[in-house]
């Protein structure tokens, strides 16, 4: 297998090769570790590389194969894990200075499930400080560069996870998504990123304070929709350790792959997203909707009430829930937060309790309004991020020039880059970002497919059909 093959390899392609013992897990692991050694210094996708542990897992998985035991399609597949998910015996910083030396003695449930399915963990990925932003410009662990253009951000907060998959340093990753932190970097790096329904994936073992209790979700990154479906199957399901994890049965996700989408109804929400889309994103998104129409879907325009309140609900719920676990650090090591995050926590402490509860009540109205929309449609399509990846310099200065006008990257409603993703954190609806085109300067653009609660299979059905028809997934960044 050549280096080029590794760049285009997917889980679905490698699984049968590993099962047939045509490629050993150790060999595969070493090849990915070589790529990490070669490309990670420039990308800073991995914060910690666990080469020895990975090779140890690989050897054990090879032994199992020789003994006739194959765990399934993730057997021997190399993964990365965002650094706010606890990994037993491996440093887990949450992108923070406060947890710089924390080594958990337990695994997050997603990590445990992934390893039970046969995954090889190659390391922990860089992220925005405390998952509190979308640039992955981290003051303590450096900036993760976008594999498509290293002068640009990878997005965030799970920027390292997205970059590690886009650069083929691994075949999949797990991130967390409180306001778009899986889908935003997936969009900017041209990979598939999924936030399943609230409660579908256990959140046990996530670093507290890196996501709101009401709005945070854990989810997979992969190169293709099919790989994403395989990963979700492995990590979904009820978990006694997470009181908010759901007992709904796990769907047949891979069974939805390849089904026709003819006759399905795709909803487009009037108003809300138009405000945020640049010309490049508008063009790519419209073309993607056109492609879906050629596959036989029917487009339905939707008017959904209360969308103007989404940002306020997200702000009140997520910030209050994030600052509550920060109490200890605000007392003992407040200046170990970067100044913007320290100030944000102080502002969060000023949100009154009644406003928090009001936000949760308004949230119910928004949830009900979105759910009612699924009387009329099977899925909703929306842009993931309003514009392609900004440069690192633009993010540092706080604004960018988009279509000739100045756009503030942080506004009163929150981070500009996540205003397209937060509706589905507030509503808990499953939402997947996949590549729907490239800008004139070669940067990936993402589209979200959103479903009714626990209808992830439908996302895979529609996403896969679009992906195969459009063919963008075959493009890979040039890293040399």
């Amino acid at each position, binding site marked *: 297998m050549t280096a080029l093959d590794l760049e285009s390899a997917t889980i679905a392609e490698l699984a049968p090769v590993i099962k047939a013992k045509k490629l050993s897990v150790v060999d595969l692991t070493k090849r990915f570790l070589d790529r990490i050694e070669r490309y990670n210094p420039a990308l800073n996708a991995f914060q910690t590389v666990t080469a020895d542990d990975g090779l140890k897992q690989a050897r054990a998985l090879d032994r199992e194969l020789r003994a006739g035991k194959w765990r399934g399609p993730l057997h021997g597949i190399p993964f990365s894990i965002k650094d706010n998910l606890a990994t037993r015996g491996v440093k887990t910083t949450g992108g923070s200075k406060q947890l710089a030396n924390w080594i958990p003695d337990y695994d997050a449930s997603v990590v445990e499930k992934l390893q039970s399915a046969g995954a090889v963990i190659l390391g922990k990925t860089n992220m925005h400080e405390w998952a509190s932003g979308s640039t992955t410009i981290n003051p303590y662990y450096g900036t993760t560069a976008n594999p498509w253009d290293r002068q640009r951000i990878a997005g965030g907060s799970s920027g390292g996870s997205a970059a590690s998959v886009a650069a083929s340093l691994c075949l999949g990753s797990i991130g967390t998504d409180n306001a778009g932190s899986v889908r935003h970097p997936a969009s900017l790096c041209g990979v598939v990123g999924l936030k399943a*329904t*609230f*409660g579908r994936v256990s959140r046990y073992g996530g670093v507290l304070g890196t996501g709101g209790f*009401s709005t945070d979700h854990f989810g997979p990154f992969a190169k293709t929709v099919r790989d994403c479906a395989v990963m979700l199957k492995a990590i979904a399901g009820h978990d006694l350790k997470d009181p*908010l*994890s*759901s*007992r*709904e049965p796990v769907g047949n996700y891979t069974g939805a792959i390849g089904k026709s989408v003819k006759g399905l109804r795709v909803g487009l929400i009037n108003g809300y997203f138009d405000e945020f889309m640049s010309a490049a994103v508008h063009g790519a998104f419209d073309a993607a909707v056109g492609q879906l129409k050629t596959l036989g879907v029917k487009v339905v325009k939707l008017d959904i009430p*209360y969308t*103007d*309140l989404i*940002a*306020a*609900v997200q*702000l*009140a719920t997520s910030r209050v829930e994030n600052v509550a676990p920060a109490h200890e650090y*605000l*007392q003992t090591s*407040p200046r170990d937060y970067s100044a913007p995050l320290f*100030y944000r926590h*102080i*502002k969060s*402490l*000023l*949100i009154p309790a009644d*406003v928090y*509860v*009001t*936000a*949760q*009540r*308004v*949230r*119910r*109205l928004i*949830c*009900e309004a979105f*759910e*009612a929309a*699924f*009387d009329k449609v*099977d899925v909703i399509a929306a842009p993931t991020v309003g514009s392609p990846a900004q440069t690192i310099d633009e993010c540092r200065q706080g604004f960018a020039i988009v279509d000739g006008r100045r756009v503030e990257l942080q506004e*009163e*409603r929150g981070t500009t880059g996540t205003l397209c993703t937060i509706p589905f954190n507030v509503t*808990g609806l499953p939402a997947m970002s996949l590549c729907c085109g490239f800008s004139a300067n070669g940067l990936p653009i993402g589209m979200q497919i959103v479903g*009714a*609660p*626990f*209808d992830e299979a439908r996302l895979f059905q529609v996403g896969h059909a679009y992906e195969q028809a459009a063919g963008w997934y075959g493009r890979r960044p040039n890293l040399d």
Partner: protein
Amino acid sequence: MEEQVRRLSAQYGWNLSDDEIHRIAAEAAVQEKVLERLKQIHLAQTRPVMGAFKARRSSPGNRRRK
């Protein structure tokens, strides 16, 4: 707002500078304005979202809210 920030600073022992207090208070005032809109919604009988979500059980053509 500045007074509230000063109180928090004293309570937590942050020793915020006057510049920091001005800045945080100004940003908190903007935040308050954004959140103010939530109070203008009629919420009688509307309970907060709590607990795990449920799947929709009925057919796509005849779906009702959970």
